């Protein structure tokens, strides 16, 4: 049979992406062992994994499905609260390993359910409706979390959206979600290794999905939904699959995030609109549709403001310059051709021409 080069090139590309993640992990471990990572940087390791996972998640919606989500921080928020809620409930009764594993799964599943429910009415439509609805969702979720009170006492769980008193708990009751104060005392189960594993698993799942029958169906909708329908691709089904899967991954990232925080509050800085836009910036700068690019952009853009902290006022200036340079490098046709020639990424249009 004829050799199909683009297929082997794609799998080489995917292995490259996975190896890159592993290499970064090993490098960090070595540097850490050699005492070359200061405390401030060490505190950044888990958030780095969270943001890189969010970039992988959002790239699935924006780059692969071709829909716009402006509220991905909302799914992360849902995953963070659902998982922390679970961990607080079982903090004393379950050993760490199964509890955290379950917490991550619950974060993912609950966020996935929200993604699914949002998708049902919205993804049947063609147009930018998803952007509008996810934008609203992100803001609403944040606000709901700020007025939600949940407590536990001998009688069981109490819910309120008014205040702590309205829970009517016994004096020995314990607050689990305390309105604007959120959840405090989530067990600190996250660490860099688990973060690395979540990022790795999310990446492998997304890459394997993309290079499959269903992944091709998802990309066909992105490229031309009328043609996709004409060859019998069930469009709504695959939009739902991609969007729900993305929400699940974002929820898992949220669980990783919340188990790294002493107190989890739904503040705009953590789960607001700006965060959703930041994730979108990762995807766009990474070269829309490129999982590897999204991860690199997430890492670079998370590290830079921290690395430049000593420059005080000039920090944001340099950050902006880096943004612009990355934009140019990734989107200028000449530099893309250069990247193509030297790193042979499949994404580029020239893919079929070389090596024949």
């Amino acid at each position, binding site marked *: 049979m004829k050799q199909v080069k683009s297929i082997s090139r794609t799998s080489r590309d995917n292995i490259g992406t996975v190896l890159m993640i592993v290499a970064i992990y090993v490098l960090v471990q070595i540097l850490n062992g050699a005492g070359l990572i200061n405390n401030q940087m060490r505190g950044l390791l888990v958030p780095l994994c969270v943001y890189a996972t969010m970039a992988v998640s959002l790239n699935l919606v924006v780059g692969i499905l071709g829909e716009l989500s402006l509220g991905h921080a909302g799914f992360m928020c849902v995953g963070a609260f659902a998982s922390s809620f679970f961990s607080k409930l079982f903090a004393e009764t379950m050993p760490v390993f199964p509890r955290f594993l379950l917490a991550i799964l619950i974060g993912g599943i609950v966020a996935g359910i929200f993604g699914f429910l949002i998708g049902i009415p919205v993804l049947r439509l063609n147009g930018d409706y998803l952007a509008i609805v996810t934008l609203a969702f992100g803001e609403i979720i944040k606000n709901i979390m700020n007025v939600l009170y949940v407590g536990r006492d001998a009688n069981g769980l109490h819910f309120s959206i008014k205040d702590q008193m309205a829970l009517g708990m016994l004096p020995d009751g314990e607050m689990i979600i305390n309105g604007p104060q959120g959840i405090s005392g989530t067990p600190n189960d996250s660490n860099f290794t688990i973060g690395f594993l979540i990022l790795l698993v999310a990446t492998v799942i997304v890459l394997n999905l993309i290079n499959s029958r269903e992944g*091709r*169906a998802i990309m066909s909708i992105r490229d031309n939904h009328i*043609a996709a329908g*004409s060859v019998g691709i069930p469009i709504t089904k695959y939009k739902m699959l991609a969007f729900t899967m993305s929400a699940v991954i974002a929820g898992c990232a949220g669980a990783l995030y919340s188990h790294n925080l002493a107190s989890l509050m739904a503040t705009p800085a953590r789960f607001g609109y700006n965060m959703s836009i930041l994730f979108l910036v990762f995807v766009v700068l990474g070269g829309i549709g490129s999982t590897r690019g999204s991860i690199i952009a997430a890492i670079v853009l998370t590290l830079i403001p921290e690395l430049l902290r000593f420059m005080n006022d000039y920090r944001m200036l340099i950050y902006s310059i880096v943004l612009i340079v990355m934009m140019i490098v990734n989107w200028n046709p000449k530099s893309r051709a250069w990247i193509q020639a030297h790193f042979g990424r499949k994404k580029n249009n020239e893919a079929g021409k070389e090596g024949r």
Partner: protein
Amino acid sequence: MAALLEINNLSIQFGGLRAVDDFHLTIEKGDLYGLIGPNGAGKTTVFNLLTGEYKPNEGVIRLEDRDITGLSTIEINKAGIARTFQNIRLFKQLTVLDNVKIGLHNQYEYSTAAAILRLPSYFKTEKQMNEKALELLSVFNLEDEADTISANLPYGKQRKLEIARAMATNPKLLLLDEPAAGMNPNETQELMDDIKYVRENFDMTILLIEHDMKLVAGICEKLTVLNFGRILTEGETKTVLADPEVIKAYLGG
């Protein structure tokens, strides 16, 4: 036996314009049928009605005696009608091979889990899909372009790829909307040979829209002529093309 395709009394109205008015058509299995007419006559609109892109105001469409009027494009493709587009609609960012494999989507199956975990069924099915897709590409001499991103193909090959993709859905009826548009005479000749080949070797019934009279006269056995949404005449190609009414319509009468 019932005809493969039977359309009766089909009409659609856009605002005040009856783009297709009281249209009828019967196609037998194995036919190579032409739909012609001046610009704006309503030919593409007939295709859009046939494939469920538009819903008719009146009329019935039957495929092998089954009423398919009002079904979605997806269901109609599954029922056995596939099409190409006048303004090419490829999956531009994907390779030529992937374009055809997307056409094969509904004939092969493995679970999402098999894809994510790369189970044996994934590799086995993908291999079968690759073979089938390459076989279809080779009909149109496109197998050497399998790795090319489809947007980078020359125009004539893009049109052929659209036919290969439509055929990948294993249709009973293939609708081609101006397949020779933008092709040079050599390419058109190749295309005519390809269409004949497909019809004979794949047992395909074909309905095509075309302005190139050389192609129409060369391969279509029967024609229907549309003018301002209505049928001007229909019948054997030779008779129809000699009809003074048809010549007049084409000369802008």
